[in-house]
């Protein structure tokens, strides 16, 4: 590992973490604004123009708040849970290829992606999301509060159930692309045939399971406010609460970015057509890569909007309905999807 390599990785890490924090902060604002528009309200508009600095005010407020730990809580795990939650969320960002190669140093090309050529790419993503449950489950257990415990239990059961369908939903994509590597999956889509057109069922399945994995409505049972007060973060305050909250939004952005990678062609700009010939730019030239990066972020944030939109439109599932949906509907559909995809590929060969 050369020095340049190390410096580049550090710079990438710095950019990614800052990007994630900024994005999460503005996603909170976007959520509040969009919710307000849906509900015929105005939304935050006091801090800065159009309330643009509201998120910073919120974070500052959380920083200066007292950190309350209940007397009966398990202090170590109470403090550990938010760290796990945010740590896992951030780690996922290392795997997502946000852009194509931007600069070349010592013959190696670097883009805004830390471990893009990992040949287990998508498996690593699944692994990280599956570990994310520890943050929520431990937060719920260590608070020593019954509502929190129920939130933690619900989230553990929910994540195990939906992880399965999520993994199976991806297999269709992997079968077509013939690789687990995220870069290869994007390359397979750059001729314009995005996998959403080949795998519409897989996309819908992945969207639903992603909603469940990120604990978003209509699957937000772990923090269902009318039932469990605050769910797993009932007993959290100050920046620990902030971290749990931040992790939730970081997970949403990560899920959206993965969906953009797997189903919406990653940094491919125009569907059905080859970008470089349409735009008259050489493949992997800097302007094209930057445009591609913009396209990637645009897709990711469009999906974030869908997440928010769904949250403010749909009621919440009940626990048994959630399990029924996961095991009796999504799992069979995803299995059939795999079989059909496999048969079609076999037939075409």
């Amino acid at each position, binding site marked *: 590992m050369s020095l340049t390599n190390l410096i580049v990785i550090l710079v990438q890490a710095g950019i990614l973490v800052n990007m994630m924090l900024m994005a999460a902060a503005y996603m909170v604002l976007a959520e509040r604004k969009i919710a307000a528009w849906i509900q015929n309200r105005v939304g935050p508009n006091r801090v800065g123009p159009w309330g643009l600095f509201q998120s910073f005010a919120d974070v500052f407020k959380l920083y200066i708040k007292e950190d309350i730990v209940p007397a009966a809580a*398990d202090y*170590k*795990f109470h403090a*550990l849970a938010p760290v796990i939650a945010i740590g896992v969320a951030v780690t996922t960002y290392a795997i997502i290829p946000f852009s194509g190669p931007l600069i070349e140093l010592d013959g190696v090309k670097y883009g805004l992606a830390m471990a893009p050529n*990992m*040949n*287990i790419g998508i*498996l*690593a993503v*699944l*692994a*990280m999301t*599956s*570990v994310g*449950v*520890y943050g929520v*489950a*431990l937060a*719920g*257990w*260590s608070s020593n509060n019954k509502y929190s*415990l129920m939130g*933690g*239990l619900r989230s*553990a*059961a929910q*994540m*195990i159930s939906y*992880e399965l369908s999520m993994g199976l939903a991806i297999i269709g994509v992997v079968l077509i692309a013939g690789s*687990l590597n995220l870069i290869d999956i994007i390359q397979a889509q750059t001729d314009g045939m995005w996998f959403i057109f080949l795998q519409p069922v897989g996309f819908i399945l992945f969207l639903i399971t992603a909603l469940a994995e990120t604990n978003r409505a209509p699957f937000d049972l772990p923090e269902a406010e009318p039932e469990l007060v605050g769910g797993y973060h009932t007993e959290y305050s100050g920046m620990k609460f902030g971290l749990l909250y931040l992790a939730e939004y970081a997970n949403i952005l990560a899920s959206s970015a993965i969906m953009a990678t797997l189903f919406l062609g990653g940094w491919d700009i125009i569907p059905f057509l080859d970008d470089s010939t349409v735009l008259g730019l050489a493949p992997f030239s800097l302007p094209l890569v930057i445009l591609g990066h913009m396209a990637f972020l645009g897709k990711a944030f469009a999906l974030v909007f869908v997440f928010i939109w769904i949250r403010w439109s749909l009621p919440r599932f009940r626990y048994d309905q959630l399990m029924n949906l996961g095991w009796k509907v999504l799992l069979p559909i995803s299995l059939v999807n795999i079989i059909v995809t496999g048969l079609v590929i076999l037939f075409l060969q």
Partner: protein
Amino acid sequence: MFTVFAIGAVASAVFTITRKNPVASAMSLVGHFFMLTGLYLTLQAQFVAAVQVLVYAGAIMVLVIFVIMLLNVGTEQQHPQSGGLRTTLGVMMAGLLAVLMGTAILARPTGRVDLPPESLTIGTTEAIGQSLFTTYLFPFEAVSLLLLAALIGSVILAKRHVQEG
């Protein structure tokens, strides 16, 4: 890197059996699995590493924690030591294990061993897929059938229990 992961793995394994709080114990085991993942990665076995996290840390240990939380297992009380026999036997066993391991380590070939170049690709997804679906196809299918039978059997057992109850 190996040293870091190895020490981490041993330490978390020790924590797993010494912690009295079951959740702390389980979390140490999760840490242990992560250290093993690191070890796999240093061996270029990326697929095994990812599956280790996905299955063991991500699914099985979540279930374990789920059950611990559900049953609300309390902190284990200090058990009184039951006589010297157990301790003596334990020490003897530990000594035997140490001797076995020591001989194994001392008996290894000294100096660097040159691995064949294909050993670097053993752990990749392609290599595992190739060997599972060609060389070891029959055992692989047999094992999956066996697991399926076990799954169906357990479902039937659980169902009967529900009907009786």
